[in-house]
């Protein structure tokens, strides 16, 4: 068992430097695809994570340009995942793309500052982005310029203003304010919440 654990740790440690040095892309379909796209868009960093998973890092100001380019190969936009990196004061947006023709999933990562979260919309490339952007706007407060339907979508206006999925939103505090304090999930000393 210990062996197993060590192996895993080794794997993780080994994995980190590999990405940073940007090695030669492997000669697989993934590698060829990444090379093709990176040649056209030199501002983007591309790498192959594993079989059928590739990754691109794109600066935020060129994200629209890059996605337009990528949409030739990747037909579908599966999701726009937002990660709130509170310590770095940044939002990371991961555009999850899927290529039906090649069978490859791509993460297109971009980072934007937390206090000035603005990005151009990609509705013109994939109309479905409207929903994803509305959602990201609602839960994180990111403004997608050009999307006409930003506003309360899933939430009611009151919760919408708080952008509840941000890391600095205190759920339990908010719950106490809104629904009253009668909880029963205390530990025995009645001081801490138990999860």
């Amino acid at each position, binding site marked *: *068992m*210990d062996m*197993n*654990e060590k*192996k*895993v*740790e080794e*794997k*993780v440690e080994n*994995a980190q430097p590999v990405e940073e040095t940007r090695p030669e892309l492997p000669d697989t379909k993934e590698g060829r695809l990444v090379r093709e796209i990176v040649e056209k868009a030199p501002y983007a960093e591309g790498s192959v994570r594993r079989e*059928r*998973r590739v990754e691109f890092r794109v600066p935020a100001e060129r994200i629209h340009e890059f996605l337009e380019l990528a949409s030739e190969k990747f*037909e*579908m*936009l*599966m*999701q726009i*995942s*937002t*990660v*709130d990196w509170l310590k770095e004061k940044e939002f990371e947006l*991961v555009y*999850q793309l*899927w290529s*039906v023709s090649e*069978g490859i*999933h791509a*993460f297109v990562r971009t980072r934007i500052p937390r206090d000035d979260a603005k990005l151009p919309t990609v509705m013109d490339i*994939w*109309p*479905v982005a*409207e*929903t*994803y952007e509305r*959602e990201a706007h609602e*839960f994180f407060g990111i403004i997608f310029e050009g999307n006409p*339907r930003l*506003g*309360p*979508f*899933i*939430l*009611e*206006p009151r919760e919408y203003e708080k952008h*509840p*999925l941000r890391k600095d*939103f205190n*759920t339990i505090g908010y719950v106490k304010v809104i629904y009253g304090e009668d909880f029963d999930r205390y530990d025995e000393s009645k001081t801490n919440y138990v*999860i």
Partner: protein
Amino acid sequence: MTNIEVPKELREEAKQHDMYLHPIDKDTYELFFGPQHMATENFSIILKMDGNRIERAIVNPGFLHRGFEKLAEQRPYFTNIALILRICVPESDVPENIYSMAVDEIVGWEVPERAQWIRTVVLEMARMSAWMFWIMGFGNEIGLYTAGQWAAAYRERFMRLFEELTGGRVYHIYTVPGGVRRDIPGDKWLRQLRDTVEYLKGKMKDFDEILFDNYIMFERTEGVGVMDRKFALKHAVTGPNLRATGVPYDVRKDDPYLYYPELEFEVPVLKEGDSLARVLVRRYEMEQDLYILEQLLDMGPPSGPYMVKDARLKALPRFKPPKGDAYAHVESTKGDFGVYVVSDGTHKPYRAHFRGPSQSHGVTVLEELLKGARLADVPVILKTLDNCPPDIDR
């Protein structure tokens, strides 16, 4: 018809929120379709109607929003299993499985063969019971209650099997990162499963006669809610809905997981892209799923452990995966169901973002397809897209 007097400031506010439509002239009126409605589950569509035709539809989801993604950030990895499976109620094994697969990938676990086999069987059983549920919903919405009643009764057979395997009827909390929670109960259970598969195979004929070959069903669905291939790809339509437009994309084939690379099955594809094609694709998939289950049973469960051997599993609440992120997706009956899990090395996930297929089917696609449809087509379109509101809300 109903002219609504709305104060000016409210009108302005509503416009801002884009939640409500207002009659602009005497011929149109707004109709609130749901949430207290038989066809929509807990989901609302605001329709601007011109007589019997829909001019514009606005989807108003969010009645089922529980903030899963926030809650998942507040709970340890293994506790989350009991929570996130509630995202997709008719097919609760799908969120469990994708989450477990993503965590497996982050940790770097190779799930034992036996666990993979069990997970595949569970997923296929979930698919089959979800199909039965879908027949029920579709039947009820076009007014064919008999087929629905039969299908819901057949679903109970799977519920019993699930109960014996996992202890739960609807929510199983069975698949966990690293394997499954417990072993299969024994050969008797496998025999029962085989009996059920055989039984349903015989019953597909009944469904053909009453539902899938029904003249009025054809009338109701043919040419309703048509989308073409390009539209479907741009709107991230997946699953049977995409295959009904002629794109043979199935996660089980194109991004194989678990035991699927070793199984033989076909991906049914139709070209028309209307509701009828979507119904028939589903019909063919049911057959394929039964066939897959049969193959799995023929193979038999491989021997070995059903859970990964790892010291960290001894203290589950403090289980810490390494830093990293992963995206895992499976083919559910509704489409491509995915999750993106980010780990920052602590014992709680930093972010778990789910991608329900209805996020695209239930909002933009639905709004587009409803334009110009008749009121009677609304339930048909809703059900042939297989819209599942909790996917959107989460």
